[in-house]
C-alpha cells in the first residue's frame, strides 16, 4: 500500500511547485492539502483538503489555519509530510512531529539568495530541509535539485 503521504502547500507558486513533484509519491497513499479549492484539478484523483491560509504578514490567522491543518492531519494520519511552503507547511510539520511523522521542507525556488523565513525555521522542525539553489546548500540544508 505504500506510505501515507501528505503533500501540503499554500497557494500560488508554492502549490504549482508542489504539483511538479508528484512523481515523487506516485504509488503511495498521498493526500493533497492547499488553500484554493479550484486547484483540485491539478492534484489528480487523490484525497484533497483545503485549509484557511496564513502567512507571517497576517500571523493572527495562525490559530484558524492550525485548527484546519490539525483536522487534516487527523484525517490523513500521514507518515511523511512533503511541503513546498509556506508557513502552513511548517505548521503541519510541527503539529505532526510528536507523532513520529517525518517531514521534508522543499524551500521555494523563489528564494534564490537567502532561505525563506519559514525555511530558516524549518531546520528546527522538519526532518530534512532542501534548497533548490546549489549555492544556498550548507551542511544540514541540502540541494537535491529544482522544480525547473
Amino acid at each position, binding site marked *: 500500500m505504500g506510505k501515507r503521504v501528505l503533500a501540503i502547500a499554500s497557494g*500560488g507558486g508554492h502549490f504549482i*511547485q508542489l504539483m511538479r513533484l508528484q512523481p*515523487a509519491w506516485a504509488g503511495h497513499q498521498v493526500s493533497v492539502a492547499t488553500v484554493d479549492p479550484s486547484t483540485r*484539478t491539478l492534484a489528480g484523483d487523490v484525497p484533497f483538503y483545503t485549509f484557511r491560509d496564513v502567512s507571517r504578514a497576517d500571523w493572527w490567522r495562525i490559530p484558524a489555519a492550525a485548527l484546519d491543518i490539525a483536522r487534516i492531519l487527523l484525517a490523513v494520519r500521514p507518515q*511523511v509530510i512533503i511541503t513546498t511552503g509556506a508557513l502552513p507547511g511548517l505548521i503541519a510539520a510541527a503539529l505532526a512531529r510528536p507523532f513520529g511523522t517525518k517531514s521534508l521542507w522543499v524551500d*521555494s*525556488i523563489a528564494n534564490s539568495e537567502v532561505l*525563506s523565513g519559514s525555511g530558516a525555521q524549518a531546520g528546527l522542525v522538519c526532518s530534512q530541509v532542501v534548497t533548490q539553489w546549489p549555492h544556498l546548500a550548507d551542511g544540514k540544508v541540502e540541494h537535491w535539485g529544482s522544480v525547473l
Partner: protein
Amino acid sequence: MNGVFVSVGSMMPFDRLTRAMDEWAAQNPHIPVEIQIGRGDYEPRHARWVRKLPLSDYQARVEACALFVAHCGMGSIISAIEAGKPILMLPRLAAQGEHNTDHQLATAKHVGTRPGLHVAADADDLKARASALLADAAHDAAGAPAPISRFADPAFTARIRAFIES
C-alpha cells in the same frame, strides 16, 4: 483570446502593475487585455479585469494569450514555461509595500534570464516592452520559452521518493 493576459498574483495587491497595463490597454484599444487584479484597490477602466480566476481558467488564459504579463512570482513563471508563452514581468518591490522582501528581484536576476522570460525595470519600461514583445509575437519571432514537462527533473523527484520510502 489572443491578446495580453495579466496576472498580479494572489497574495498581496500590486496596483503598480495593474495600473501600468490598464494604461497600456488605453493606448492599444485594438488589443484585448485582461487583468487578474487579485487584492488590488485599483480597478481597471480600459482593460477587462477579474479578481481571481479558478486555476483551470487561469491556465487556459496563459495558453491562449499572445503575451503573458505578470509579477515576478514562481507560479506565473512556471505557468508560462509550461505553456511555452513569452512572459514579461515586473518584480514586486518591498520598498513600495508590494511584498515582504525583495526576493522577486532575486528571482528576476536568477530565473528571469532564461529564454522567453523578460523583466521590466519599471512601469514605463513594462509598457514599452509589452508593445515590442507583442510586435515580435505577431511575426512569430517572440522569445518564447521551450515548453517543459509538467514534472520536475526525475533525478529530483527520485531523491524525494527515496526520502519517503526510507
